[in-house]
């Protein structure tokens, strides 16, 4: 499966990217497993607070990600 990852705010500073694509051999992956993989690639993310949205909806760590999903890593909101 191939998924798109988006990074915002401080997380885009850490990854030096706004967006990237990931391809896995698995057909699905849990949000928590993806989080571990990403934190392995970008270790500074382990020390930050963030939430994860799957296809523009806030997600739990137990949720399942499938092919073509868009996963966004969102630091604390600061609107207003």
């Amino acid at each position: 499966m191939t998924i798109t990852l988006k990074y915002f705010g401080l997380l885009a500073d850490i990854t030096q990217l706004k967006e990237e694509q990931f391809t896995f051999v698995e057909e699905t992956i849990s949000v928590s497993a993806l989080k571990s993989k990403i934190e392995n690639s970008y270790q500074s993310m382990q020390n930050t607070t963030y939430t994860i949205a799957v296809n523009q909806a806030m997600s739990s760590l137990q949720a399942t990600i499938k092919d073509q999903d868009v996963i966004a890593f969102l630091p604390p909101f600061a609107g207003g």
Partner: protein
Amino acid sequence: MSTDKPKKSSFIQGPITSEFIGNSIAKHQSKTTIGAHNIFLGQVRADVIEGKTVAAIEYTAYEEMAEQTFYEIREAAFAKYELSCLHIYHSLGTVKTGEICLFVFVSAPRRKVVYEALEFLVEEIKEKTAIFGKEIFEDESYTWKKNT
């Protein structure tokens, strides 16, 4: 996930000007069932963080998700309060201290609901909308803002 599509953009590039706010008020003069408006304006504050003064905030957003959130907040407010109309505008890009970055405008036939609806809207926007703020100091260094 809701399949409803956002109806219009709530984002404005740069600060929200007093001219824009004035024009928004003027546009409601033809809606004569309205008896009360209430307006919230968020202004960029010159916070001092570790001895450095904030000069501006640069706003970014997960725009598609934020527009959907604005839409859902708007629908929730209409379901909860008897409103004639409501408008939400938020800045993207650089807004200097003293300039306006958030404009929320609610209107109703009578005054009581506009106080409650406005507070509901502002709190929901701050809590739920995927907007991020880079606080830029006078020396051009920066830190990422967190809502408290």
